């Protein structure tokens, strides 16, 4: 096995949510999760709903603070960086969300949404950003007449593409994909995942793919981690994991998915 450099390494990451009301119990959403993602690869995080997989994604992007643990991105501990110093990383690490219906501001046109990266970061071609945007989204298979529309007039699959196009304007090195296709139809899911794989081959971006669909994860990731109730129960290279699942929970999951196919 050759040595691969990890672009992102998560060590003993934990998150405990405080009780939401008096006398309630604190909820341990994530407990001591560690994994590493090699550069240019996809790491699939699989688990049933409520197992804490989205929380991990949000902690990596620093949308919510972690209770404990470290996240190393190219050797730098992201969680230890001060708010101000973190800003350059906002370009390099991005996140794609689950619900297309709330992923774009309904009061803005698609064009306004796509201008945001230019307003927030010093990107090349800022003077003629509208032209750049037009060119850019056409390479994502979107027609430029979409730009004048509002979110409510655009289908879910197209919104996810628009959001992805916006993310790619920033040229990130790492993207957290939080159930990017769970609200989409199968044919649109196939288009989306195909596009993501194409981008990976072209630009070498790495993904953390979070999903509850084992078939999807198997198809799209190089390495897989299985989560249950906040813990990482098993992780391995994709084919090794499916060839010889060690944990009972993994076996049960695989069985449940195979069940439907026969």
């Amino acid at each position: 096995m050759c040595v691969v450099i990890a672009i992102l390494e998560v060590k003993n990451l934990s998150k405990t949510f405080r009780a939401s009301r008096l006398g309630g119990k604190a909820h341990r959403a994530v407990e001591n999760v560690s994994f590493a993602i090699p550069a240019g690869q996809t790491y699939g995080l699989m688990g049933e709903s409520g197992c804490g997989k989205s929380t991990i994604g949000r902690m990596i992007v620093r949308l919510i603070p972690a209770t404990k643990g470290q996240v190393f991105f190219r050797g730098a501990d992201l969680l230890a960086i001060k708010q101000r110093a973190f800003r350059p990383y906002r370009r390099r690490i991005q996140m794609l969300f689950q619900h297309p219906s709330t992923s774009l501001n309904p009061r803005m046109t698609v064009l306004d949404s796509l201008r945001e990266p230019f307003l927030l970061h010093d990107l090349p071609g800022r003077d003629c950003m509208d032209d750049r945007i037009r060119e850019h989204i056409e390479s994502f298979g979107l027609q430029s007449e979409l730009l004048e529309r509002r979110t409510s007039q655009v289908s879910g699959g197209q919104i996810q593409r628009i959001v992805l196009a916006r993310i790619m304007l920033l040229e990130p090195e790492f993207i957290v994909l939080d159930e990017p296709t769970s609200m989409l139809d199968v044919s649109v899911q196939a288009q989306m995942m195909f596009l993501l794989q194409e981008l990976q081959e072209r630009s070498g971006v790495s993904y953390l793919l979070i999903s509850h669909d084992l078939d999807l994860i198997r198809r799209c990731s190089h390495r897989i981690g299985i989560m249950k109730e906040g813990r990482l129960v098993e992780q391995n290279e994709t084919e090794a994991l499916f060839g010889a699942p060690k944990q009972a929970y993994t076996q049960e999951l695989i069985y449940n998915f195979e069940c439907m196919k026969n």
Partner: protein
Amino acid sequence: MKKFLFYCALTILIAFIFIGIFADLIAPMDPDAINMANSLASPSAEHLLGTDHLGRDLLSRLIYGSRSSVFIAFFATGCTLLLGLTIGLVSGYFGGWADQLIQGVVNIFQGIPSTAFVVAVLGLLGPGIKSLLIAIVVSSWARFSRVVRNQVLGIREMHYIEGARAMGGSNLYIIRRHVLPNILLPLLVLIATRIGSTVLTVAAMSFLGLGLRAPASDWGIMINDAKLYFVNDFRVLLAPATCLTLFCLSINLIADYLRDHLDNDADTARIL
């Protein structure tokens, strides 16, 4: 139909504002000119709506009355908006201990019914425009900020807020570009209803002798003046009451239309 009513209401409201601003030019007579010889006169060519018990021109008093009502209503609502919006935004957007603290204070201020609050503050500060403004703002900012906070709480969970944060947008940027535009419509409804209730409060306080004081021209004072004379001549009461009702009606229609629009917005989002 709804749209027609809305435009009617909007025209009436704008007319009131216009009349209020240009009262000096529009009013045919001096509203305070007393002419005891001509008291309680019926409408005539000289006095289009007749005169009151002191012989003052009723129409001119109505026109000057809309000035004080409109001015106080808009100014007080503006102050409430500024205070309530800021506090509500901070409380809803940032959450945490600031939210808890603010909500504690809001709960206390909401613990006293608003009319009682206004009256008490006025009683302690003494009557007058300034104390009226203070009383209205102090008694209504809490409810206002609560509504803003609840709206913001709903929006804070949306992916586009998270997306903007992940792209490196500062809090100020996110509030300006994403939060404010999305609470605008509910905010407009809130402002409309507040203006309506403020006009009512001002009239009520003036009526009780706690707000503006006679001989100022104000609808509430006119109703108060009329209470001894309306038995014989209902006109002196009807005129200010109609103005007040018309103003409230236009506000209610506008708020109703905006609220419908709000639902439609949500509906289209759901269907597609």
